[in-house]
């Protein structure tokens, strides 16, 4: 993981971007493990980014502290949203989260006094004065924490809770499991991660704007990565982010026009041909050989 440090600034920067998407992909997957799809990653990413930028700018908070604030703000938003919409799960939840990004964008755009309005807000300087190595370490740390949380979710009682919710809500409820509590809990944790990632993004590039920060790609790319790597595991999204992140960077240099098509094709083909993803496929193979 320290490899990019010796590979030059460009690779370091690309690795930082890939780590950003890795965290988003992993946090998205953690929620999927409860059976809920969120199309609102960009929304929480944006809330985190804006909260961090505005607190750093107006309250002169330390950048690292402002990143924590970004995570908390996203978590608070998720709690409010979760408490209202997670009673109805499935399609309704998915579509509400799809709307979420747009709602936040509209709000941010229409409160120019607070947020800088449509033009966004510029921070005086990037975090660590733009030092790419330190930024890389920061993102790596966030990614490791995300991985740790994901693994914790796979090894503790949370695993039993979310797996039963995903497979059979009725059994879960009848076995004494408070579905709503767990759904809201996981939603809040994953949103906090997305908020933190967004906040560090804002600190890294020293600016936020409604269009750039609430970009639908922050939702889209993580989903494609999870699908490719395989859902419902820690390894899957990591593989997906590494593979798709680097392939996309390579393709961009080879096929400058329309390489986003790859993401759509990946999502479609994986769902049709390999719903368990790369990691799942490997696991399956492994089990068969045993």
């Amino acid at each position: 993981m320290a490899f990019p440090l010796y590979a030059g600034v460009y690779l370091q920067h690309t690795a930082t971007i890939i780590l950003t998407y890795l965290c988003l992909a992993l946090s998205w997957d953690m929620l999927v493990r409860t059976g809920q799809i969120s199309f609102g990653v960009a929304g929480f990413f944006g809330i985190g980014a804006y909260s961090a930028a505005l607190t750093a700018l107006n309250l002169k908070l330390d950048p690292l502290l402002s990143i924590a604030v970004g995570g908390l703000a996203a978590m608070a938003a998720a709690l409010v949203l979760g408490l209202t919409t997670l009673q109805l799960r499935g399609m309704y939840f998915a579509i509400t989260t799809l709307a979420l990004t747009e709602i936040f964008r509209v709000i941010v755009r229409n409160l120019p006094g607070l947020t800088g309005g449509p033009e966004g807000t510029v921070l005086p300087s990037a975090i660590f004065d733009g030092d790419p190595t330190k930024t890389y370490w920061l993102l790596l740390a966030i990614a490791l924490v995300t991985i740790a949380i994901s693994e914790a979710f796979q090894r503790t009682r949370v695993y039993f809770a979310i797996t039963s919710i995903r497979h059979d809500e009725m059994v879960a409820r009848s076995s004494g499991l408070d579905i709503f509590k767990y759904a809201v809990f996981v939603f809040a944790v994953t949103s906090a991660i997305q908020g933190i990632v967004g906040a560090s993004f804002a600190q890294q590039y020293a600016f936020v704007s409604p269009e750039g920060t609430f970009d639908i790609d922050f939702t889209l790319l993580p989903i494609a990565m999870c699908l490719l790597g395989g859902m419902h595991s820690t390894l899957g999204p990591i593989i997906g982010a590494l593979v798709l992140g680097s392939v996309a960077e390579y393709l961009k240099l080879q096929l400058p026009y329309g390489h986003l098509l790859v993401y759509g094709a990946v999502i479609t083909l994986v769902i049709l041909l390999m719903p368990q993803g790369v990691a799942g496929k490997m696991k399956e193979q492994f089990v068969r050989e045993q």
Partner: protein
Amino acid sequence: MRSIEHQDPTMTNQMAGEMAVLEIDSLVRRFGGLAALRQVSFAVNAHEVLGIIGPNGAGKTTLINVIGGIYPPTSGRILFQGRDITELPAHLRCRLGIARTFQIVRPVQGLNLLQNIMVGSLFGRGASLKEARSQSLGICQFMGLSRVDRAIAKLTVLEIKKMEIARALSTQPRILLLDEVMAGLNVDETREMIDLVRQVCAQGVTVCIIEHVMSVIRELTERVIVLDHGEKIAQGPYEEVSRDPRVIGAYLGEEE
């Protein structure tokens, strides 16, 4: 969760005064225009095995679902140990001590045999992972389930049925609602299951059992409730009820 119960003085008084664990009071459940339960009332006494029988579509499973809290009744009341639980969500009912199995088995596919059983212990009883594991292993032994790390796909029908009961037992229930656990089992397996239910009962768990196989009802239950078209048409010992013309009529109606 149990501790909360004891803090409620009215409840303990009632518990002392009455033998009923569960009281059902004029329960009505409609689906759209269709009434699945009409004014059903009965009580389940502590330590008894109560049979619930009736032709297909009589509302037996709906009754279990309403008692378990899967959906609320349209009207009527449910009392558990004297406490009104009509408004309580399913998971809290489970934690109070109402456990159930499902007519069509519902193992959680992502979990293996032991893990499935642990779910009940973890959430129904609030056990830690370690406690849940050892407790569930104990229940497995009691139920005669071996090789507990097998995936669901590798289990036999009997094993899955046992797993469902084990999962319900791992919540340490006061009352266990069994929904056609004998369906699809052969004679020997049915025998084994009947013994198991007896042992469960012997441990002080009250049992409510829905069953189509009348020999099982005859052997296990002290008392039966007969439902037809959502209405309670008879109750009493099986031998008595089976001679009731209304009951015979209901079952004959099904034959047509």
